[in-house]
């Protein structure tokens, strides 16, 4: 999976450069002339290019290298907007939400109901069912059971309904990002 990244950074270079990413604008400017920081995410961390969006004024003097880099970053950012609006991505997102929202609400309500019943209706919870086992014990073990079942269902849903489409989108997005940056740079 790592190899699917189109970034030119090797793991060694990536690693040693991590601390430098905080060194502020001048450092980032130096890096911008090289090719090591082609990932827009990295640029965001390195210089906070998005800070300009807050008040509309750049936070540092704009020089040629920086302007060019901002162009490339903007082009790459457009790629993400474009992908976000694509039908394929909307499909992946709605599949994710269609599972997670009902399942999440379901288990949360069931858990809160369990906790609230345990405190407000101990009489009901103490009602014996079979031998020493009472309603409270069954409800507690039921929480374990539903957790296991939902885990299994989520993993299955993600594997069958989401993984393949998400991986294709990842490839496409990275391809588009690279082209956008390459186009702006040349």
């Amino acid at each position: 999976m790592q190899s699917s990244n189109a970034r030119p950074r090797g793991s060694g270079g990536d690693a040693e450069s991590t601390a430098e990413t905080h060194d502020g604008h001048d450092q980032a400017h130096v890096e911008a002339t090289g090719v090591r920081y082609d990932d827009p995410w990295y640029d965001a961390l390195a210089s906070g290019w998005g800070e300009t969006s807050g008040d509309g004024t750049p936070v540092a003097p704009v020089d040629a290298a920086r302007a060019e880099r901002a162009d490339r970053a903007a082009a790459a950012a457009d790629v993400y907007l474009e992908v976000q609006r694509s039908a394929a991505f909307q499909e992946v997102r709605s599949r994710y939400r269609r599972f997670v929202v009902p399942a999440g609400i379901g288990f949360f309500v069931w858990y809160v109901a369990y906790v609230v019943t345990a405190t407000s209706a101990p009489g009901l919870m103490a009602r014996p069912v079979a031998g020493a086992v009472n309603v409270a014990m069954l409800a507690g073990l039921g929480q374990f059971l539903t957790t296991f079942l939902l885990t299994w269902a989520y993993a299955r849903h993600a594997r069958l309904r989401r993984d393949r489409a998400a991986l294709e989108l990842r490839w496409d997005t990275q391809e588009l990002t690279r082209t956008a940056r390459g186009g702006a740079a040349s």
Partner: protein
Amino acid sequence: MTGNHQTLALLLFSAFVAVTLGITTWVSRHRHGSAEEFYAGGRLFSPMENGFAIAGDYMSAASFLGISGLIALFGYDGMLYSVGFLVAWLVVLFLVAELVRNCGRFTLADVVAARMSERPVRIAAGTSSVTVSVLYLVAQMVGAGSLVALLLGGTSEAAQSWTVIGVGALMVIYVSLGGMRATTWIQIVKAVLLLGGTVALTVLVLVRFHGDFDQLLLTAAERSGHGRSFLAPGLKYGGDWTARFDFISLGLALVLGTAGLPHILSRFYTVPTARAARRSVVWSIGLIGGFYLMTIVLGFGAAAIVGPGAVRGSNAAGNTAVPLLALDLGGGADSTGGTVLFAIVAAVAFATILAVVAGITLASSASVAHDLYASLRRGRAKPRSEVAVARTAAVGIGVVAIALGLFARDLNVAFLVGLAFAVAASANLPVLLYSLFWRGFTTRGAVWSVYGGLVPALALVLLSPVVSGSPESLFPGLDFQYFPLQNPGLISIPLGFVAGWLGTITSAEVADEARHAETEVRSLTGAGAV
């Protein structure tokens, strides 16, 4: 306690320390001193390895000693912890694990800062992460202290203090030398040991009752002196409405806190992809669920076999129920079997504490170096300095945790962990969910939601009966208790969410649509993930 126990337990424990130190040295052979290596172990662990490591990070002394102890003392009410601790993983699996893996690099702040103005957000998220970690560390230290008190006869305060100091020193060595790679392997070894020990004890308890769980429950109820009500909720959290709200508050904190724990979040970065992160969570849910089911058996087993009276006599908070149970299951205090089993359990509990402490220390040193130091420092530093700062931070955090651990010695371990969860749920979870899912979330919203959860949570704990105003509190002599609940979650978690919402709607800044698109696309597809 006879000398045999101590010698054998200390021998086993020394063996564990030797093995883990060996691992640390061996692993750090190929260390490059890079941040990727130090914080994320090179991101090359398999889902199964990471699943065991997550389980190892999560199944703390609080679970092993604290929950079983609470069940032994209060019956069913102790089970709430088991249920809450497990159900919480659904939040992690559904909403956090994959998305965080896809769009972060080392810490919680990475995910939030990617969309926001970086500096204030990093400082806020870093502060709350360190706070949660320190609270959690204190719980582990208290566990170590009470274990040693039992081992050495319960009276020697000096020995207890030295243990806490020793545990702290060892963890600093692990973390600063071995980084994430060594810490992960220690977690894996510890998870296997802990699960092995728990399975063995559970089997022995069930064999004692001829596999009859019903009989086990009935005996526990009978010996507890409470009869059938021992098996139903209400002994600890029944009675007045304060206690009931406390129970609900704790329940909320447990289920929402896990997804905000920094040392759990940082574990997702040790695998290469989001898919691997998901599979490691599935592994860990299986392991953790099995473990908590067994703690229920052990808790009721301790009530049935040892009896709540003896448990309370050894440690008022119940932290020593499982070691006492092991002693009894092996054949009693003077038998070889009892000695061996007791020693094994004590050593496993020590290993648990050490490993968890190492995991949290690593996560919090990452927050200090990667978030706080990088944002607050002036001037320029050399490229390798971030890892150096993280190593130094590990030492500093160790010292703070040792000091607080000595101080909070008499509180129940599971209860202390409940506090850490409440702070994590109030300060870390709202900002994380908002930045992943809310298009209009802004920098001010992010900062407000962190402080809006963190400050009330801490203030309410300070004003609660935990700190003052009751005989069991930290300062029994003082009384500045104005908040009735022990756990602040019920108030502070909603406050965190509300503060984030208020900060967002009142800020002049318009959320950057492109950066939201980037976060959303990256989180769901993994494009450009490191």
